[in-house]
């Protein structure tokens, strides 16, 4: 019958409810599609690289040295060089960054001096890497007389990652509720006892994640190391784990990728792609470790 009232019942669907439900569904699909759109480029990049790199990929490519003027062979010196650079830069930046963040978040009072430090940290994080490169060149290579070396390049990378480590560590520390700290102070604990017993154990996962994410950033940067210690080619024994000393120049994956892509004619076609796969693969491996560590540590989180 036309114009009949909607079916009775107190929870019958009215026009308004139906419209709301439709809006809900549309919103869900749009947000879902956007999330998917984020994943697609990554998949596209990875699969494209893998396909193009396939002819060269293998342990042989990783462990061999470049041959015939880098037109063939592997990338061992560049791979080890990147390990050195990233390892040393983190060994410098992580302790300084974490300790500085603990000071800023747990001890520092609100005054002009600490505001200046805060401003410096924030602005330093926004400085482009090529400017860090120039600074590293002036400060470490020339002023400190470290020369073009692994040391200079690592320190430049450390300067670059430091502010981000400080910022991420502070965020992790700030996520521990203040009530916990006050409870500790109330029973006569010093600030350090409070930090050790309660603050650090509950922020360590965030702190570690912040540090490890800087690995990928340090590994991928080209400009800072190009100015301060990375070279096109360095003769190294095949598979040698300790080919460099601190004062040596070194090869690096990011630099090598630039070289074989643009500077050397007639390179075997798959070599740049394989280099990129190794760089990406190492970074993803490190990130996966970070995620695993976070999951494990969060499982132990206690509130």
């Amino acid at each position, binding site marked *: 019958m036309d114009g009949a009232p909607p079916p009775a019942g107190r929870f019958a669907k009215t026009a308004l409810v139906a419209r709301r439900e439709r809006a809900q569904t549309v919103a869900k699909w749009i947000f879902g599609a956007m999330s998917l759109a984020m994943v697609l480029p990554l998949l596209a990049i990875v699969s494209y690289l893998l396909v193009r790199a396939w002819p060269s990929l293998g342990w042989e490519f990783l462990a061999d040295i470049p041959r015939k003027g880098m037109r063939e062979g592997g990338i061992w010196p560049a791979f080890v060089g990147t390990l050195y650079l990233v390892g040393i830069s983190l060994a410098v930046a992580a302790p300084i960054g974490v300790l500085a963040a603990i000071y800023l978040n747990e001890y520092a*009072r*609100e005054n002009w001096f600490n505001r200046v430090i805060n401003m410096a940290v924030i602005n330093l994080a926004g400085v482009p890497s090529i400017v860090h490169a120039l600074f590293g060149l002036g400060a470490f290579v020339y002023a400190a007389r470290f020369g073009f070396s692994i040391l200079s390049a690592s320190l430049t990378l450390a300067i670059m990652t430091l502010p981000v480590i400080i910022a991420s560590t502070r965020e992790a520390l700030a996520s521990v509720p203040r*009530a*916990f700290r*006050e*409870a*500790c*102070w*109330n*029973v*006569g*604990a*010093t600030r350090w*006892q409070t930090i050790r*017993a*309660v603050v650090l*154990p*509950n922020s360590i996962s965030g702190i570690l994640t912040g540090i490890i994410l800087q690995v990928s950033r340090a590994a991928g940067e080209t400009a800072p190391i190009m100015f301060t210690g990375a070279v096109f080619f360095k003769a190294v024994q095949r598979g040698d784990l300790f080919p460099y000393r601190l004062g040596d120049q070194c090869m690096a994956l990011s630099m090598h990728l630039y070289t074989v892509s643009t500077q050397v004619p007639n390179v075997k076609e798959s070599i740049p792609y394989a280099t990129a796969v190794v760089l990406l693969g190492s970074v993803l491996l490190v990130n996966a470790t970070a995620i695993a560590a976070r999951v494990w540590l969060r499982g132990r*989180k*206690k*509130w």
Partner: protein
Amino acid sequence: MSATSPAVEVADLRLAYGIKEVLHGISFAIERNEIFAVIGPAQSGKTSLLRCLNRTIDLVPEAAVTGTVRVDGSDVRRVKDVFGLRRKVGMVAPLPVGLPLSIYDNVAFAPRCAGVRARNDLDSVVERCLRQAALWDEVKDRLGSLGTALSGGQQQRLTIARALSHQPEILCLDEFSIAIDPVTTMRIEDVLKELRGEMTIVLVTNLVQQARRLADRTMFLWNGDIVELDATEVIFSDHPADRRTLDYVNGIFG
């Protein structure tokens, strides 16, 4: 330090956060081993007053304190060992805070901070305090599980056990019952009655009837001034000295 000095002696205490003064020069004394209630509406300065007793007010950046607070006869601003002072003044916060540690470690935390290491000593402290806080029977079989996993009422008793673990001479409770159920509240009130005579108890509360049930003397603090301080029977009688007291305890304002 003489046995005759009051437990707490406050003289002309002023406290300001920035330009906003919250305590306007108050003076009073708390006798040894009494239960001393502080009542008053929100924003009266009750919690700030407690923070002045154990100098956790130092940890509030913009707070400025003048006047003197003497705990056990000594000026708190002059004590060399502020951590010792805080152990002397136990503090229980309004919201239960189980530290993210095991139940055992929650109670053993303060003795450990004070340097106690021997397992036997810690064991006996933990058991004594949990018994005093009426929590022992519920948790004695799972001392290793997390303090944060307890229910709100249990966590508040855990907080009290922690405050007792450093053997305070003064126990301050800041509106301990606002987040817990009435049954637990009554249990804790029983605990306080048992502690009466062993230590001085400062009870800050929004529930005027709680002060009436427990306190020997009651102070009515309002907007940073003492309206009235007298024996609890007088405060809750029909004829307190100040008309506002009568109105407040009868729920007419505040």
